[in-house]
């Protein structure tokens, strides 16, 4: 499986920020870390299906905009109440300024 999909360009996201990406009926969140690396996870919080892209990125943590559920967006790991289910992550690569994510 090498289903790479273009999500955005690298300039679309500020460092230490996040953007929503919808594709084929699914929604994802694309992150740019303070170290200028890109990551991708499912777009909805595992607690109450809120779009994570409206949340705040601090270092490697994305915080749900509604209930402050926190995840490590690099690993998908849930960081404690109210979220206990991890986020699914996706491989990301940047080619010629384009951010591509691999959908399984």
């Amino acid at each position, binding site marked *: 499986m090498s289903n790479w999909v273009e999500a955005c360009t690298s300039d679309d996201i500020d460092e230490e920020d996040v953007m929503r990406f919808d594709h084929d009926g699914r929604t994802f969140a694309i992150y740019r870390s303070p170290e200028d690396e890109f990551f991708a996870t499912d777009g909805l919080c595992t607690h109450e299906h809120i779009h994570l892209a409206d*949340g*705040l990125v601090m270092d490697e943590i994305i915080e749900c905009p*509604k209930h402050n559920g926190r995840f490590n967006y690099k690993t998908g790991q849930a960081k404690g*109440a109210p979220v206990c289910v991890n986020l699914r992550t996706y491989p990301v690569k940047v080619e010629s300024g384009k951010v591509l994510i691999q959908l399984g």
Partner: protein
Amino acid sequence: MVIIGAGECGVRAAFALRENGYGGTIALIGTEPHLPYERPPLSKETMVSDDHPLPRTIASIEQFAEQRIDFIGNSTAASIDRAAKSVVLHDGRKIPYERLLIATGALPRALPLAAGSKHCVTLRSYDDALRIRARFGPAARIAIIGGGFIGLELAASARKRGAVVTVIEAQPRILMRGVPEEIAEVIAARHRHEGVTLRCGTGIASINDTDDSVDITLADGMEIAADLAVIGIGAVPVTDLAEAAGLETTNGIIVNDWLQTSDPDIFAAGDCCAFPLAIYGGRRVRLEAWRNAQEQGSLAARNMLGGQEPHESVPWFWSDQYELGLQVAGLADEATQTIRRDLGDDAFILFHLAADGRLVAASGIGPGNAVAKDIRLAEMLIQRGARPVPAQLQSSHVKLKSLLAA
């Protein structure tokens, strides 16, 4: 360890005891028959879902079992025997404690004029929500008494279900407590646009049941006939157990910085407690908010295990009505100056500064969660006691995150 109250706060405390390494027994006592559930959806999703709504449980039976938390539902704590260090249940059962947490929450304030009315109800529990939901059909005449969050969220939900809705508020405008006028006006306009009638600035003279409806007469003589009236005029802390046990109470169970009551083995947290708020000079407040209930539940657990951590969070709450999301961080009553920042998409934030330049609160409104990120950043600035430059708060070209580094 024993916890009285199985709402957000009590449940969080139970799990936090385990997360912090406690290995002994944990009893969690709740009055309702259901597995502990989240209350915020009751006025919103529970009212409008197409399918029969199930309570959104906080944890599963398996999770309680895994963490060896003994959830005792359908049970009321009748008294606290401080000398014997045990909680006496209504059926006479005694549960001994080493440390006790009271997390009994708050109950809807009663409206004396509505006493005895069959058609006036309040919302606190999932069962209340089901009863109200059943009456929210198309063309049902619904009166909402009280233009606070619960009342307005119910008004929005009732409109979505096709009901004819009138909101009655004695104050000159809706959301007088805790929401700036500029934001309350956006919400009021949104309700009017949906066809909700807002009747502000008029008290109620009388409430009389007829056979299958209720007649509400306002102080100015206007009469409103409703099939159902929902009363949402605030909440009162549940302190009777604490009072009967001789603990200090004044609008809530009095606790110190560590959420300890006047008995060092008894803690109180969430809506039922009045606590010193460190970031506002230790003034005593009582909050009725979901996140506070969670945070204080965790904090109480750590301090029950011997910690001495003070409560240092910034108050935060939200409300959703139609597609609008409102969020408020901090307490604005010290504010002398307000700065508006427009975020686009009809979203904006008001920053409230005290006379010494400290940011003390921020309130925002917009579609969905448009204000969430910036309110969260504002909360961090408030926490740090930051004195941001007003022009930078105002300009949407200046990133709020950059102010955190200052």
